[in-house]
């Protein structure tokens, strides 16, 4: 370890440390401009120069490694002079008149702070020899814009884009004084594959690249905030930590915190995290409880006096199916150009999207505003009545993967303890339920075994099956791209040519739904080559022989016939996978949302176990979780067959334990596993009263037409949400909840990391934090629920969930904790299963699986296979993202992705309307031509109410987890005649 002296202080610096790092260890700051944490060091600004004894030249501190015995002076006369000159040279090209007259200037950014600190006096702009810098400007961009006169060419933005996000939109063009930052070849970020992540905004030290803020767009005044509050992004399962900047009870900007901290995102976010927060203050937010007109209280009892039968839940709207078949208006014009002057009609694109994707005014008509007292009273008395009259089996709750752990815990507690029902579920059913069932059968676990950062740090081979990570988990996707860039071998199994597939070393582009055959064949070949990990199989698993026999017939050739993937490619992938040395396996909805989802995941687990690619740093099993808290909601028991922490409801001893903590008679709680979401919304379902917190099943569940009809038949429906959603419009009572920014709570990301989000602002109007609503309701219903804060709820969770026993709010500050955290001094668990699995004998079990066809194969009548999924800019049913100005401006239209040759055959071009029909329904949507999809396959995102993909999907259920087959259905596509469009 080299020992160096910095300004007279001796420090021991780690091997390979730079002068900058050593100085920081000594508590000495050296100014930097081009240097930035995690970016490659380029040492170009030269502001960090220092004097080193025995060296004739000044050395850049950021780029010079220390050697033993070095004596460094950071503030030598020479160094300070050189630094001032660097600032002076930069100022010669910078609009700096406001910084004149010395120390009294108000610095506006990192660069200006140095100018003021070093007291450099800029030349008045009018008297200069050099002109202001130029560069591409992104005029009209809905989220990111440039003022390149502020650019000091530190190239942080270029490196952030290239080396952190691995996109490469920005670059330096030209030489000498003409050097400038450009956006792609022609200034069009779209063509340059920009993802609008805003990494460039984050790193720019001058604000030359800045975000268009929802309030002060392009205003004169820099956005100032009163407070900064640490929170967690409300979108995907990566769980990026974000800082909410607050002014006047509004979130005015989102940034990402100190990236040296070991957070999942280390300072990055994707476009949604950085720009998609304005839904919070959208005018559609519900501010008072709503009660369906027709409910009146007579003599202390609530009675329904409105229409009955068909009209009981009707309103002045068309059904989703009705909207689906309509022609859609065209997209607003897209603004592009290199320079502001290319775009005289800048304001053309400022049209207010609130009038397009917002809640239609007439949806409110069937409701009247109510007080909380009235609304909660109605909910409590109706739930109690139906429970009393029809029994626990008639009660059900849909919990929310968007709500906190505490809220999910409280809600299942209410339904289990007060109503004695296990009809408790949430959207995990349509997400990773098949993963959970398969992982539980094989390893008795329900979460990822490893951490996201091990992919970047330690893994040699990355195998991704059915996960479009760069769009659905962009920050994690970037980490995968970084791993690939540093040399990890990337294998992608996906029917679509998604971004990662294009980058992959091997792309296994199989027919949708044929994964079992593919994985079995890979294992077949691994065994044929003797590449299995025999020691692991012998010591850590059982029932291997059954799988060996089962995969025997799945030769790569046979798999080629089924999957369409060349046998040679299957062989190569298999060998690479097995050779590792450290292979990490990732998967997501592309596997799970199939009729055979459980089998697909099982086949993949067989591959993992046979090669022993689990339980080491770098060899992880990673189901990539969708929602920001789908892991947490599951952990909190929002699943029909388990209590919190996956303790089975059927175990009387466990029931006893929970009953004691919840203060109810154990006998009043059910030992029967409850119904799953997909089993509830059917004609023969026993459910009569349904409580929904923060979910929108009418858009997200398969075969919408049926689901919508079913919801209308309920006896009582209460919905707790931010907006009057497509589902909420059928409710009897709508309770206005709080967004992530308006409450404190904890969330679990895809790597089991529990993180805390703090309340930043007050909810709008009378809206209340969701936990408060449930606490209030529970107490009204007579279930003792004494919590005064989410922290108190966590204290109870710790008592009942062994894996969470060591979790306290205080410990969650910072990077959070990865459970299991069995005690208060346990540091958390970055990866699991180093030496045993959580089964009785510590071993994992192999389960043989056979391939079978998807439920619906294309035929003459329905010749296309339709796949559904997400887009980068939208989230699920669009409730949040379609109310976010920037995001919706990027993807304003419902589309279907279709292969260029298919489009040609159909005689359609980009933007043309087409009609898509399946055995269940029809939508009209517009064409996006893309070779991401293979021939005869189409992709329809499910975010759009006006062309809801789930009108077409099939409700057939997977037998283990009752997952719906959302990824495969047969459809027909027809051109809509243009006359019809006008």
């Amino acid at each position, binding site marked *: 370890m080299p020992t160096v002296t910095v300004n007279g202080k001796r420090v021991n610096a780690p091997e390979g440390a730079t002068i900058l790092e050593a100085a920081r260890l000594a508590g000495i700051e050296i100014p930097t401009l081009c240097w930035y944490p995690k970016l490659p060091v380029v040492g*170009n600004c030269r502001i960090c*120069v220092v004097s080193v004894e025995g060296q004739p030249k*000044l050395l850049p501190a950021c*780029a010079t490694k220390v050697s033993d015995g070095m004596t460094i002076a950071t503030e030598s006369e020479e160094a300070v002079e*050189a630094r001032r000159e660097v600032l002076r040279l930069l100022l010669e090209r910078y609009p700096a008149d406001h910084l004149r007259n010395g120390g009294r200037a108000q610095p506006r950014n990192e660069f200006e702070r140095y100018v003021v600190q070093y007291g450099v006096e800029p030349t008045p702009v009018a008297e200069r020899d050099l002109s202001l810098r130029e560069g591409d400007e992104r005029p009209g961009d809905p989220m990111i814009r440039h003022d390149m006169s502020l650019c000091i060419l530190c190239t942080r933005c270029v490196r952030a884009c290239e080396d952190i996000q691995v996109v490469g939109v920005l*670059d*330096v063009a030209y030489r*000498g004084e003409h*050097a400038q930052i450009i956006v792609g070849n022609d200034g069009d970020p779209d063509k340059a594959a920009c993802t609008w992540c805003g990494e460039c905004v984050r790193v720019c030290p001058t604000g030359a690249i800045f975000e268009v803020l929802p309030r002060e767009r392009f205003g004169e005044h820099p956005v100032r905030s009163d407070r900064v509050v640490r929170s967690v992004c409300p979108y995907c399962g990566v769980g990026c930590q974000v800082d909410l900047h607050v002014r006047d009870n509004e979130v005015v900007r989102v940034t990402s915190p100190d990236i040296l901290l070991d957070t999942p995102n280390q300072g990055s976010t994707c476009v949604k995290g950085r720009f998609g927060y304005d839904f919070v203050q959208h005018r559609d937010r519900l501010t008072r409880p709503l009660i369906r007109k027709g409910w009146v209280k007579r003599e202390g009892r609530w009675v329904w006096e409105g229409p009955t039968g068909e009209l009981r839940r009707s309103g002045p709207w068309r059904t989703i199916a009705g909207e689906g078949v309509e022609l859609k208006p065209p997209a607003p014009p897209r603004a592009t150009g290199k320079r502001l002057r290319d775009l005289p009609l800048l304001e053309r694109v400022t049209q207010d999207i609130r009038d397009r994707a917002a809640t239609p005014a007439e949806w409110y008509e069937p409701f009247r505003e109510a007080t909380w007292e009235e609304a909660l009273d109605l909910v409590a008395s109706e739930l109690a009545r139906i429970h009393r009259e029809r029994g626990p089996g008639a009660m059900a709750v849909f919990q929310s993967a968007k709500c906190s752990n505490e809220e999910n815990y409280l809600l299942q507690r209410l339904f289990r303890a007060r109503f004695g029902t296990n009809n408790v579920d949430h959207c995990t059913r349509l997400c990773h339920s098949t993963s959970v069932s398969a992982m539980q059968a094989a390893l008795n676990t329900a979460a990822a075994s490893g951490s996201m950062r091990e992919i970047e740090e330690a893994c040699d081979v990355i195998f991704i099956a059915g996960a479009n990570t760069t769009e659905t988990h962009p920050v994690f996707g970037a980490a995968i791209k970084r791993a690939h860039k540093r040399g990890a071998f990337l294998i992608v199994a996906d029917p679509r040519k998604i971004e990662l597939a294009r980058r992959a070393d091997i792309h296994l582009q199989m027919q949708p739904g044929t994964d079992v055959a593919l994985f079995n064949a890979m294992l077949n070949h691994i065994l044929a080559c003797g590449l299995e990990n025999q020691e692991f199989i012998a010591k850590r698993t059982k029932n291997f022989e059954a799988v060996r026999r089962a995969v025997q017939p799945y030769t790569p050739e046979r798999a080629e016939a089924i999957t369409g993937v060349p046998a040679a490619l299957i062989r190569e992938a298999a060998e690479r996978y097995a050779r590792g040395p450290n292979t990490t396996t990732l998967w997501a909805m592309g596997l799970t949302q199939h009729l055979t989802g459980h089998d697909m995941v099982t086949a993949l687990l067989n591959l993992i176990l046979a090669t022993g690619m689990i339980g080491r740093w770098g060899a992880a099993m990673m189901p990539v979780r969708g929602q920001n808290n789908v892991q947490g909601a599951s952990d909190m028991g929002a699943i029909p067959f388990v209590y919190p922490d996956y303790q089975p409801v059927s175990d009387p001893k466990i029931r006893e334990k929970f009953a004691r903590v919840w203060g109810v008679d154990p006998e009043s709680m059910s030992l029967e596993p409850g119904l799953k979401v997909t089993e509830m919304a059917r004609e023969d379902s026993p459910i009569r009263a349904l409580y929904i917190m923060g979910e929108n099943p009418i858009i997200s569940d398969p075969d919408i037409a049926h689901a919508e009809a079913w919801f209308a038949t309920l006896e009582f429906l209460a919905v707790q949400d931010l907006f009057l959603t497509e589902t909420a419009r059928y409710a009897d009572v709508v309770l206005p909840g709080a967004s992530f920014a308006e409450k404190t709570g904890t969330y679990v990301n895809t790597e089991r990391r529990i993180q805390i989000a703090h309340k930043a602002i007050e909810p709008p109007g009378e809206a209340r934090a969701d936990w408060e609503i449930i606490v209030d309701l529970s107490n009204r219903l007579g279930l003792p629920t004494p919590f005064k804060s989410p922290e108190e709820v966590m204290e109870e969770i710790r008592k009942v969930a062994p894996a969470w026993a060591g979790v306290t709010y205080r410990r969650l500050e910072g990077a959070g904790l990865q459970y299991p955290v069995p005690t208060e001094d346990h540091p958390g668990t970055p990866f699991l299963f180093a030496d045993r699995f959580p089964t009785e004998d510590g071993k994992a079990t192999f389960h043989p699986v056979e391939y079978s066809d998807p439920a619906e194969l294309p035929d003459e009548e329905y010749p296309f296979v339709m796949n559904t999924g997400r887009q980068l800019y939208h989230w699920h049913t669009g409730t949040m993202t379609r109310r976010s100005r920037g995001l919706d401006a990027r993807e304003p239209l419902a589309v279907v992705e279709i292969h260029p040759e298919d489009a040609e055959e159909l005689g359609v071009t980009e933007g043309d309307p087409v009609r898509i029909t399946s055995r269940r329904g029809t939508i009209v949507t517009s064409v996006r031509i893309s070779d991401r999809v293979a021939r005869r396959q189409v992709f329809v995102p499910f975010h759009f109410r006006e062309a809801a993909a789930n009108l077409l999907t099939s409700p057939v259920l997977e037998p283990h987890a009752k997952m719906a087959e959302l990824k495969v259905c047969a459809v027909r596509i027809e051109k809509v005649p243009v006359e019809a469009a006008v």
Partner: protein
Amino acid sequence: MGYPHPPHPKETVVLSQYFGDPEARTYEGWKKRGGYTALEQALSMAPGEIIEIVKESGLRGRGGAGFPTGLKWSFMPKEKTKPHYLCCNADESEPGTFKDREIMRWTPHALIEGCAIAQYAIQAEVTYIYIRGEFTEPLAIMQQALEEAYRHGILGKDAMGKKGLRLDMYIHRGAGAYICGEETALMNSIEGRRGNPRIKPPFPAAYGVFGMPTTINNVETLAAVPHIINRGAAWYKSLSLSSPKSTGTKLFSVCGHVRKPGNYEVTMGFPLGELIYDLCGGMREGRKLKACIPGGSSVPILNREETESCLLDYEGCIEKGTMLGSGGVIVFDDSADMVYQIMRLARFYAHESCAQCTQCREGTAWTVRILQRILAGEGEMKDLDLLLELAEQMTGKTICVLSDSCAAPVVSGIKKFRDEFEAYIKGARRPVTALA
């Protein structure tokens, strides 16, 4: 040989022996002139032995910095764990320098042979010859020669008939950026990146092309290697007229106000005055020598007295406060306007700056503007101080030395020809407004 002029008796003709002889270009012609015997011999030695011979010869880099070549080769890892590369720097873009061009034009096989020996010595599997984009004729000739060399088994699989030895050589064409002659920018350029110099350390021997151990040498350096192998280190070392640290012959590209501009090959330590007055035929009729830049445009300017007493080797130039550089000798007679000439030089660097470093990007451009202002008669005395201040900041503080190169002529020019600057400032000279 002072190509295109007949050889002068004071020259020591080694590298330039076949300049002007079209037959030497072909494989057969080259073989007839003793070509590829050095390679044959080298391949019978151990790589380490070759490096020792080159070290012993005292050969130093002819690309500008004059780094001892054998020592550079010895920095390559002895234990091979990664691929090794050799780069031949044929980007010759330094104003005033045109010697590599002639080597490639007339004796392409000499360069290929030199590269092959070096490649073997540093155990590289591949050589990249990075040729300046504007060199269309040398490029065509090199391509032709390379094809011949492959065809005749000099290169490729089982090179020179040695079983298992594989020598590959590729030509990479530059695209018109001076900065790509800087060794690490050249490597970036080969990799397909923007030609920005990299920060050093790590040096190329540790982290070069594609992050692999790499040696880079100038064309002239490599072309000298076969002669050293053939005739021995002692012979080469004996070619030295002044400092024993500068050995061998050197090609000087002389241009400017002399009667016979051209490439002259002389022994290290040859007097600059003799080169100009004897070999190049002296100044034009009625003109007197005013100044000279002896090492390509990047080195400080010498005045007449300094020029006439300068010995042309690494040490001799340093003694006069300048550098031998690449050996591009630019001669000015008394008709030259030094302020204008210096502005032209500065403008070249400002145009070629890769624009990474603050001092270089802004400093070179600002320097040009100030000089133009002075030329236009709008300068002030304090501008000279500003120029010197800028030059101070541009020296020794940047990633590569392009910035220093811009400062060098400015500082030496103001020091030695201050009166010309002051004449413009004081209005004693007619302003130059049309700046060609």
